């Protein structure tokens, strides 16, 4: 049998058609929420090994230009002359005591392997690139839509760029973080749910957003 490569299937593939519709009056209102499928984002759980706090902190600082966040915060890499391209697109998201979700743009399954090489002795690394389905969420009606899904105050005064929350969205466990604002100055969030729940979560999101305008699912540019 020829060793052809396997075609991956995104967690949200085919779900855009399941948005409630036709969105007649919603369409008039314009796009209320824009959801971008973050398929391909490298994700890994990083759990601190005993007694390795300092060395991990230092290692993450040197390799990625990241101050390992304490508590529910996200810290993205600062590219320096030392870390070069290795840190590009990497962020650490605090999800629990001594546990982080590390992400890398387009890192895929290789990201966990590279993390393992860099910090393996100081932390246990588990690949989650396929375990979580991640959406980037933006749009003028996002806050009103999220209000129907989560019991977290995402008002800009309260939930600032870099803030993280582990919560439940319509009975689906979810991790939410706020990215730096978009070019239009509007808030941008990402939300991660277990992959198997992608369809249920999408249904809840699409229903919640339908009133405010067409929910658009975009592939990552």
């Amino acid at each position: 049998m020829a060793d052809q490569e396997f075609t991956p299937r995104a967690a949200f593939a085919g779900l855009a058609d399941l948005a409630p519709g036709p969105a007649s009056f919603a369409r008039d209102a314009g796009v209320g929420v824009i959801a971008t499928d973050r398929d391909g984002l490298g994700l890994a759980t990083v759990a601190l090994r005993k007694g390795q706090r300092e060395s991990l902190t230092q290692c993450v600082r040197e390799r990625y230009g990241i101050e390992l966040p304490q508590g529910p915060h996200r810290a993205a890499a600062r590219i320096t002359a030392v870390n070069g391209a290795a840190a590009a697109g990497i962020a650490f998201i605090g999800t629990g005591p001594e546990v982080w979700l590390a992400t890398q743009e387009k890192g895929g399954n290789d990201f966990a392997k590279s993390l393992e090489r860099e910090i393996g002795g100081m932390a246990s690394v588990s690949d989650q690139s396929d375990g979580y389905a991640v959406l980037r969420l933006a749009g003028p009606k996002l806050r009103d839509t999220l209000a129907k899904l989560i019991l977290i105050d995402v008002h800009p005064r309260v939930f600032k760029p870099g803030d993280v929350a582990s919560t439940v969205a319509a009975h689906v466990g979810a991790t939410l973080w706020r990215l730096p604002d978009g070019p239009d100055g509007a808030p941008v969030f990402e939300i991660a749910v277990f992959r198997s729940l992608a369809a249920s979560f999408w249904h809840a999101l699409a229903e919640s957003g339908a009133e405010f305008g067409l929910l658009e699912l975009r592939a990552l540019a």
Partner: protein
Amino acid sequence: MSASRNGAAPRNRLPKQGLIDRSQVLSFLFDGRRYTGFGGDTLASALLAAGVKLMGRSFKYHRPRGVLTAGPEEPNALVELRSGARREANTKATVAELFDGLEARSQNRWPTLAFDVGAVNSLFSPIFVAGFYYKTFMWPAAFWEKLYEPVIRRAAGLGAASMQADPDTYEKAHAFCDVLIIGAGPAGLAAALAAGRSGARVILCDEDFLLGGRLNGDRHEIDDSSGRDWARRIEAELRSLPEVRIWSRTTVFGAYDDGLSGTRTFGALERVADHLAVPRAHQPRQRLWKIMAKRAVLAAGAIERPIVFGGNDRPGVMMASAVRTYVNRFAVVPGQRVALFTAGDDGWKTAIDLADAGVPVQAIVDARRDITPQLLDAAKRIQARVFSGAQVVDAHGSHGLEHIAIRENNGRLTRLAADTLAVSGGWNPNLALSTHVGGRPGWSDAVAAFVPGDMPRGMSVAGAAGGSFALAAALREGAAAGADAAAAAGFSNATPPRWRTDDEATALTPLWFVAESKAKSFVDLQNDVTREDVALAAREGYRSVELLKRYTTLGMATDQGKTSNLNGHAIMAALTERAIPEVGTTTSRPPYTPVAIAAFAGPHRGKHFKPTRLTAGHGWAHERGATFVETGQWLRAQWFAAPGETNWLETVSREVKAVRGSVGVCDVSTLGKIDIQGVDCGAFLDRVYVNLFSTLGVGRVRYGLMLREDGCVMDDGTTARLAAHHYVMSTTTANAAKVMQHLEHARQVLWPDLDVQLVSITEQWAQYAIAGPNSRRLLERLLGSAADISNTAFPYLACAEFSWRGIPARLFRISFSGEMAYELAVPARYGDAVIRAIMAAGDEFGIVPYGTEALGVMRIEKGHVAGNELNGTTTAADLGLGKMMSKKKDFIGRVLAGRPGLADPDRPSIVGVIPVDKSARLYAGAHFLTSGADATLENDQGYITSVAFSPMLGVWVGLGLLTRGPQRLGERIRAHSPIRGGDVDVEIVSPVFFDPQGARLHG
């Protein structure tokens, strides 16, 4: 009425004024008859405008009833709205916003509202007293359920449900704010402005569709404009503030717990589309809000109190403030001959407003002897006859008020023709939300009413809700409360705004009831509770207000006694010669007004009641025509019917034979997978499993069993060692979350000294079991050079991680079916591609996909225990796994597993059973009895846990738990299943039915 039906101005509509939109003519049906109203009307105001006074029949006596109020406290005018599946019962006509095409029907009448057969109950009213049903329908006892209750329920009750699924959607949403303001009357608007100007995040809720509260129903001056214009102006400013949210049509129905920071949770119902015939696309009918507020201001106003007198339920007897609201807000005069019966100054406003609107007032009956000269002057101006120190003792009229009887202060009884009687007994602060978390109201002699006692933390009260009934006080208190609440929430720059307003006379001498009245005097109009019922309760000893409520139903049902409780309690106080505060008042609990169950369910209905988990191979299985079964939240393929197969047993038997004959594939992605890493992971596993894992070699897998602390089996599964400090545990699908919790508890609480990290990786990997004698050949084709899986390189219970066509893969040689078998894991995004690749590679072997049912048949054939046996009551020994319990180490559950009860050799233990008659069917759940023994609990010897038709043996086989089972092989006993299939004689055999030597496993 004919005029209104032709679209001309209804007879009771004033030619101008009112907060209605006369350009918007709305047509609606009431009891099949067509009427028109205007935009801004309620159903009640439009019906009153059309001269309709009779709106319903009462609960018990079926007496004709009209509208009493102009708000949510309405006890009488309950109607059914809409038709078909959207039909809803018990909507108050006083809050139902009129829309074009509205259909409404009166309730509780048959055959018609005007002629109601049930009204004969009124003739028997001497026997229909409180407690009548309990006293009368006692014997024979069986008749209660079969006859009495159904008949009574048909005769009584309030409206009927549609019995169809609700076609509309409902939402649940969450909101956060610094200051929540409950009520948008003068106090609430002032509070919202004070808080809003400070920059605080404010939510202002009002149940009405129009902000302003009493400012819309009364005539006031604030600064140099009318009260209603002031309300519009404040609303406009509030709408310009970006952090102020204004929710009209929204009832805050409950106050709930607070957090450490003082933030309190409130429940609110937004009637998003109740004022539309059908919600717009994607618009919910109603939205249930959970509001988290740092501070809250209760500005819910007050509810006017009736006076209890004879015939006080006649259509036409209305609250004085409601009459003002209909006149001033809706431009509707409820009648042509109006009289007033009041106990205080406030009621006089009604007479003045009516007269100013051109409606002559026949009489002002004030129970007080001393009336201020200002009021007497006003009466003179409007040419109304004043009866001071007088009382209305009776109201007459069959379908509506016709005349009243007045006992004058000189003792003379005067009859006066009137079609409308406005009644004012004072005001009760609307304090319900102050009591929801345990606060008790306190009595105020000053206003003759209960006022909020200790307010809940973080909540303040302003205006009439706190007993300050004058407008000036409401504005002052509202502004101060809003500013204070904002300051407490961290916005200290708030300065309370000030306004000038007219002085009001609010003196009152409370009059609860007219003692002299002989005719039926209603305390609670909704439940038909009369003054005599309260007296009966007092005579029979039900004197506590809580007992009074339950005995007479005073204050129950949809209005919860908003207009009746205090009067009832005051009557009880008079009867028992106690003061009202001594008698006390009943406790108000959420919700303040009824909330539809659908709103609490929100979008979680039908299939969306809970989320569904789908494996990466779900789409493929769906294409293959799989039948799915719910396993917890997961959907798993149960079987894959082939064309021509007519029943599941045929399908499942084919799948089993194909696996055992060649090869099959099953999606096992749903099994729990836990990454266990760290220096001490081996030691950790030794402590959670009964058997040893630290000794397991890298690249090897072992079956493990874990106990709960109490010694019973918790879960089983295989755990693989991928590296020195890295294991991967598998759990059963059902117990995945529970095992993860159990391990986290052990790691964090029991042994925090161990270096162990746990991560659920269930979702990361799509995993397929490939089983059958051709499984290795298939995998060799599929994997190619990526891994050496020859029997020597990769024997039974081996595992490996490798890169396969550019993706990470894991392979485990484990078997649940008893065949040579492997489990192949790939990142979930490749799960769809890989199952298709497995099927393609297996084509030449005739591969079949198999589901959970075939999986179950094969494990029963092999005597493997599963959920039916791991049922929380069994020990390792019960399951024949006692020998796995290591004696060299300690582990969770070891000590308690040694308890005499759990170590009892007589405990039911695992056996196999086959029917003596080979054609007989076995049923799980059948109990074991020795032949001839009676089917009693004492003779019970255990039961069958799992059954399957074994296609390999051609007979039904079962696993069961039997007293001293393993010692009884060959014995014949009875499997007793009285509810399914009766008794079957069975033979006790080894639980391993197929390939007992396990030769097939090793290939």
